[in-house]
Every structure is written in C-alpha cells, then in structure tokens.
C-alpha cells in the first residue's frame, strides 16, 4: 500500500522532472488570476457606478444600457463558453496569446459579478450619508469617492474576496484554450503516466493552499478595517 503510494508519488512528481509542469501550471494560474482580478475590479467599479447613477436618476442612457447588456450577457452564459468564444471567434487574430485571452475572459467575467456586488454595496449605504455630505458642500462625485466608497469597500470585502476565490478556481477551465494551468498540468500527468489519483490530489492541495492564503489576507484586512468600529 505505502509502496504503491510512494511509487505513484515518484512518477507523478519526481520522475523525469515532472514537478516542473505543476510549477508552470501554478505560474499560469496565478498570472491569469491576478490580472483578471485587476481587470475585474476596475471594470466592476466603473459598471457599478454607471448603473447606480442611472438607477438613482431613474433614467437610462446609452452607457448604462450597454452596462446592463454586458452584465446580462456575462451572467447569462457559462464562463467556459465565453472563453471559447473569445478564443475561437473574437480574438482569432491574436490566438497565440492564449494567456492574454484567458486574462481578458476571466477579467470581463469577474467584472460583471464584482459590479453587482459593489452596486449592492452602494445601495446598502444609508441615503443620509450622501445627503449629509451634500449639505456639507461636497460635490456628488466627492461624496461618492470620500464618503460612500470607503464604506462600500469595507462592507463588500467578504463578498469581493469570495468572488476572487471563485475566480481562481474558475480559471481551471483555461486548459480548453491550451494554456497549461494547474488543473491541465494535473490532467496531462494523469493521462501521460497512468496515475489516477496523486496528480489530482497534488493539484487540489495547491489550490487549497492558495485559497487558504487568500482567506488569511482577508482576515488581516478585515481586522485592520474594523479598528474604527465602535464595538
């Protein structure tokens, strides 16, 4: 039994330097997740503000309609399909930059979800906050930036981090367009060396560690942000 596990450990990690493919996979997973998160937050904030404004004024403009359409489109289709459509159809002219396409696909996907989280966060802030700021003589934009947004960030932090964690795990479908990420690396070792279980557990362990580290960061951030809380 132990011999079998040791053997399988040897073939799936050490034999022929097979661990290198996991390292490559981890690198690609982290690159795609990191840049996708950046795109997601930027796009998400912009879309959220645009949609919130049109909602507050009870009037839609072309930009807000576009944002509505974008959120509907992204949330209405699976991320795998979005990835394949971007790769095979829209970005066919740059199809060798698969990592970049992956970043764009996951960034845009995440943007829609982040925008909804942030919009919910803005809506959850009491109206009085904006009114108080306005009567102090701040402009609407300043109120948004200095009064509403800091509170939104604090309130939505757990939900946003949840989205980041989901995003990291969602990137596991990027193997469809030929990027060797963690999951695909495990699959390649699995099928190349007839190892059924160990590559899967190695990959699962690495994902677990990444997510654990993210949770750790979230806890630290929350503690820092709650310093000014009254109780």
């Amino acid at each position, binding site marked *: 039994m132990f011999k079998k596990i040791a053997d399988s450990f040897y073939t799936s990690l050490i034999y022929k330097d*097979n661990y290198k493919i996991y390292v*490559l996979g981890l690198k690609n997973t982290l690159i795609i997740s990191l840049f996708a998160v950046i795109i997601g937050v930027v796009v998400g904030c912009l879309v959220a503000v645009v949609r919130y404004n049109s909602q507050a004024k009870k009037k839609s403009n072309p930009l807000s309609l576009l944002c509505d359409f974008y959120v509907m489109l992204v949330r209405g289709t699976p991320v795998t399909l979005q990835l394949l459509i971007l790769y*095979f159809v829209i970005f066919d*002219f740059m199809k060798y930059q698969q990592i*970049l396409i992956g970043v764009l696909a996951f960034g845009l996907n995440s943007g829609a979800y982040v925008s909804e989280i942030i919009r919910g966060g803005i809506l959850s802030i009491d109206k009085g906050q904006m009114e108080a700021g306005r009567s102090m003589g701040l402009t609407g934009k300043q109120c948004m930036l200095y009064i509403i947004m800091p509170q939104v960030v604090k309130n939505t932090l757990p939900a946003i981090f949840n989205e980041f964690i989901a995003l990291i795990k969602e990137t596991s479908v990027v193997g469809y367009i030929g990027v060797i990420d963690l999951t695909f690396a495990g699959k*390649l070792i699995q099928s*190349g060396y*007839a190892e059924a279980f160990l590559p899967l557990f190695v990959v699962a362990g690495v994902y677990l560690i990444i997510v654990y580290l993210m949770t750790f960061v979230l806890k630290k951030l929350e503690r820092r942000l709650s310093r000014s809380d009254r109780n």
Partner: protein
Amino acid sequence: MCNNTKLIDSLYIKIYNLFIFSKKKEKKMKKILSLILCLAMAFTMSTALTGCNDDTLYVYTNAEFAPYEFIEGADVVGVDMEIAEAIAEKLGKKVKIVNLDFDALTPQLSNLKDNEIILAGMTITDERKEKADFSDPYATSIQYIIYDNTQSVILDTIAKLEGKKVGVQLATTGDYIMSDFTVDNGYFDLTVNQYSSAQSAALILLKGEIDAVVVDKLPAEMIANNNEKLTAVAASYEVDNENIFASESYGVAVKKGNTELLSTINTVIAELIANGKIIEWTNQYSGIVA
C-alpha cells in the same frame, strides 16, 4: 501576421486619448488610468513579444497520446514532436507547440493558417481531408479493444460488445466507428461513452462503469502494459466480408491548398521513414512510459 503588437498598441493609445483629452480633466483619475493602462500594456507586450514571430511553426497537438505526444517535465515530447522538429529544421523555423484537447483539434482543421500544422497522431479520413490537406502517412495503426481480464465474461471481440457500454476518446477514429454501431446502421446496439483521453477512459473501465475501451493500437498497448488487470487486442468486425477496422494511417494536417508546405513535409517524412528514424523514435518513446 506580426501586426498584432502594433494593433494592440494603437488600441491602447486610442483608449488613453479617450480618457485623457475628454472635457473634464481630473488629475488623479488620469494618473490612475495611465498607471492601469501602462500595466496592461506591459503585460500584453511581454506576452505578445514572446508569442508573435514570423519564423515560427505552430504545431497543434494533444499531449495525452503517448508515445506520439505526452508530457515530460514541462515539455511536450514524443514521436510527433521529433517529426515537428525535423520539419521545422527543414523550413528554417522554430517550433511552438499549442497543446489543446483532441476534440478541439478537429474544428482547428478548417481554421489552419499557413504557419500552422496539426501533428497529433491524427488518422487521415475522408471527412478530415475535406477540411485540410494531409501529408503522406508517417505511421499506421489499427483500433484495439481494451477489456478487463478479471471479469467472468471476456470481451475480446467487437461482436461480444452487443448491448455493452464502450468507452472511446472523443472525436477519434474509434469514436467515429463505434458511434455508428446501431441497429439502424445494420450493426447492433451498444452504448458509447466519450472521454477526453484514452487514459481517462481506461480509468473509468477500471472502476467498472464501462465494459470495454476502443482506442488506437499504441496507446492501448501502453495502457495494457501499465495495468495487469487490462488486456488489449486488435479489433475487427466484418460487414459484407470487409473489415471496418481496417488499418489507418496518421498524417500531418496543413492548411488546405498550401502545397508548398505540404511537399516539404512529405519530403521530410519520406526521409525519416527511409532512414528508420520514425521506428527508432517509436521504440524509444514507447519504452519510456511503459
């Protein structure tokens, strides 16, 4: 072909101008936006520069088909990759491997560019020939049945598979042939389960969820060698005195009408067959994994 970088650059400049020279100028906004754009641009440049090159031969493959292509360390190796290197050397180009699922290679056939080839142990069939041009065959194979030899009923011929569950690799010859097996087509009924690789089909077979697997000869033999519970035998089934599992040939796929590249590839393949290199590589790589 190499306009990608320029195109992306001009796109960035346009977006940048849009924000920077709009009526309301906000200094902070400008700073943040330019920072983001710079970051994004640096990222694209780094990927674009490594990815875009005129003297590169892009080789599509699916590295789950030992001994023709599989992963060793962080590289794709195997018989097909040696052939790709030989072709690229002849053309004076560098090889860049694009590793996709095998069923994603089939749509790629009709979508090939001049500097792209598919080398994935792909069998030359009439359907595939309509979408792309194929080189002369560099290897032959037949379909094998893999069965569980610990079961009471030994399923070592196609005729015994009536009413059974058969695993195949998606979009391979085995898949095409087995999926035709229905009463309406003049055969008998069986259930076909499609998997993304021969290896995963074999793993499902070991779990007992399917009764047999039909895949190409060499992968089948390697799977059987690696597992004492599994045995592989050649498949044959005669319809009107004609074996529908006749031997098949692997070829290199190139863009339809690209005769220049095709004739170069054919020369290289002829050389490699003549000096025995292909057989040598096949033995070498079969030994590594088995």
